[in-house]
């Protein structure tokens, strides 16, 4: 094994965090294993399931496909760092009360994708929600209650 470990300075959830990572370490690995931010999940490690979704400079990205070293100088936000965002708070409340959460493993990634959708498109219809969340696999709910939760959040935010 080649040891190409290097120190990185990452901006995570509004704080500067120093980590030591190998060149091949993904953002997901660093977040979970070094920073203890386990909200983003490893479901496939291949960029398909979306359970590792976090924000980089405001955009949902696959934590498992992003190299940690390439994230220096960018603003990283995980589910743990979205606490004060009013859009996220409404989404979280609607996910809870509308039964959009089953096992919960996909939920953090789903919420990150949903927040971006509502920022871009404050009043989406069901089809737009289906399209926006199609990169986040849920094996439990059948998606209906997730879509309903996003639509309800959009409605609540519009009031």
């Amino acid at each position, binding site marked *: 094994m080649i040891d190409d470990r290097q120190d990185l300075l990452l901006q995570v959830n509004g704080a500067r965090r120093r980590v030591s990572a190998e060149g091949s370490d993904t953002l997901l690995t660093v977040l979970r294993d070094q920073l203890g931010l386990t909200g983003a999940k490893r479901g496939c490690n291949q960029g398909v399931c979306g359970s590792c979704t976090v924000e980089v400079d405001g955009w949902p990205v696959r934590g498992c496909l992003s190299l940690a070293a390439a994230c220096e100088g960018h603003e990283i936000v995980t589910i743990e760092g979205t606490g004060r965002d009013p859009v996220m708070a409404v989404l979280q409340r609607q996910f809870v009360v509308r039964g959009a959460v089953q096992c919960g493993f996909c939920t953090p990634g789903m919420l990150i994708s949903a927040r971006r959708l509502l920022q871009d498109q404050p009043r989406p219809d069901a089809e737009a929600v289906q399209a926006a969340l199609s990169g986040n696999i849920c*094996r439990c709910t059948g998606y209906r209650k997730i879509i309903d939760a996003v639509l309800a959040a959009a409605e609540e935010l519009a009031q």
Partner: protein
Amino acid sequence: MTDPKGIAVGLSIPKFENQEKVLGEARYIADLQRANVLHAAILGSPVPHARIRGYDVSKALAAPGVVAVLTGDDVPDGRMGAFIKDEHALAKGKVLYVGEPVAAVAAETEAQARAACRLIEVDYDELPAVLSPEDGLAAGAPILHEHLADYVKVFDAGSGGNVASRTRFEEGDVDRAWTECDVIVEGEYTTQAQAHVAIEPCGALAEYEAGGRITLWSANQSVFRVQANVCESLNLPMTKLRCLTPRVGGGFGNKMEAHIQPIVVALALKCRRNVRMILTREEDFEIVRARHPFRIRMKTGAKKDGTLVAREIEVLLDCGAFADDSPGVLGYSLLMSPGPYRIPHRRAHGQLVYTNKLRFGAFRGFGQPQVSFAGEQQIDEIAGRLGIDPIEMRRRNMLREGDAWFVGQQVASNGLAACIDAVEKASGWRDRPKATRHGTKRRALGMSVTAHISGLLGTGAIVRVLEDGTVVLNTGATDIGQGSDTVLTQICAEALQLPVDKVSVASPDTDGSPYNWGTTASRVTYTAGRAVVGAARAVEAKLKQHASEMLECGVGDLELRAGGRVGIVGVPGAEVSFAAISGRAHWAVGGPIVGEHTLVFDQMTHDPKRAVAIGLPFARIGVFSFGAVVVEVEIDEVTGKTRVVEAWSAADVGRAINPQLVEVQLEGAFVQGMGLALFEEMVWDGPRLANPSLMDYKVPTSRDAPYAIHSIIVEAPEPDGPFGAKGAGEIGINVIPSAIANAVAAGTGHRHHHLPLTSERVLDGLIEAEAAA
């Protein structure tokens, strides 16, 4: 039982742990951190069938960070298995499928463990492989389990050669009955292997305790099955292993029996350190378990007026390398294969054959989606030949109150008629054409009905009253995300007339929880719910005994009052709080209040006076729930691509303790069944699984699933169910492949006998039907 007053039961209370899940605070197996932990990795077999001549682990042991290497030589000769004890902790003496764990490494980092695995040399004496059940039955076929006759079996399995088990049920006189039939349909059907794809891959963490005791955390559906499997395979006394559960990221059957827990425990014992292993998605596909491929031959006969007379089914199941839950799936699929109908003459038989593939096992529906794919299509075909509406056909033949199920058990509650009425009405079935064309798109309706059980085996509950009058409920049932912690709390709260926030749930713990067989067989609400009601009743009796002494009245004059009080009937002010009673119990009289109740499901499946049953894996199976579905599909004439536009799914769940949680079961089951019907398929390239990744194995996304899935709750209360409840977890999936196939047949004129209904197959069917027309 206290009369339900609706303080908790029947309310769509959000699941209690939803909040921690939306905040990203929920801890699953991969999220648990421990000091001084070793990371483990496994080496999978590169060949499907071989004797192991020996190992050279010297290079691996010398590799950086490696603490221990585990091979078959290091594990005891114990064998585990729910029905047939045929499986070691890891390969010992032989390997039986590509990917089978043949060695494992514990090292300081995961990368080191994985790198060291590649340095292990295994000397294989390769044997010819059995890659299909047909091959396994052939004369002179290589034998996978030479010592099958010596294995411990929990039922009369009839094992021999490569046959793991065989089952046969018979009622009436099937052979003679065919002469009474005016219409007979017959066909052969095949279904594919489906992967569970719980979004959380399996994993385990063993903590080595002083003195050699292990505390084991793992992704599971039953801490008690984990304990039994690890102890059986490693010859450990159960006192040496405590099993606990973190949050679990879905199961669907995948996490019911063992995965890598025995390997992780063996490594922790060997290293005397904490050991952790989390499977990659690929490993999870390759080495855990999957839904059985079925080959089905079925024949159904009816009279001119549509009355069903006879049905025969023969199935051949691919078992994979180990029996796991497969004998149960064989027996259950045959037991349910006649469907919820009155059919006087019926025979169901089949075999389960070992092959050199990963084990097949429990998966939501437990064999029913497969046999329903054949059976419910044949009902439609008969209806079509006789010119009877498919719903009318089912109504004429459906099981009615007081009827017995196949081989003899009486059915207590039966909401089938109401389910059929509900989907007929909601879908507008009567007033709609069953097939239409719009340009190059065709739309069509299809329907299907089913029954399922909830029940099985042992369960307990303990309810404790704390000093402040609140309550802790402990059942040992693992909540895998479906919400059983919430549902059982609602049952407890209702029985004690307490607000739900005055009840907390203890996490399953083999040291501290009463036995619970597992989160499987749609059983937790029904069986654990019954135990909770029993335990709450015991608490109620003790509370009332104290109250009678405190209020100086007879026990019979007392009632529970909402909010945690016991009072004298008809005297509003005369009451004492649970807190006051519990304080008295803790500090003065009687001792802390604990109520417990245990039960084992004990209604017999088979009535020997009525039917023959050989190789029945479940002597006492469960109570019956019912379901019906209507789907509307759209078929692209140009490509064959088929999608579901809308669906109406009804289930009789006895009593919906939490309606929202029942709805989401039906919705999730629908989409998982739709994946099975239309595109999910595990594909083997010779002995090797060719698509063990989410890139190559497609599961439905939010774009594939219809938004318009309408779940409809029907309530036909089960007499001994908790507040009338029975299960809801599986019933919704049984009907989906058959209903979609019925809709595709209505839209294209072609009957499909092979799943999945891929675009290619549907297009070929369309072309064939056009050519025939």
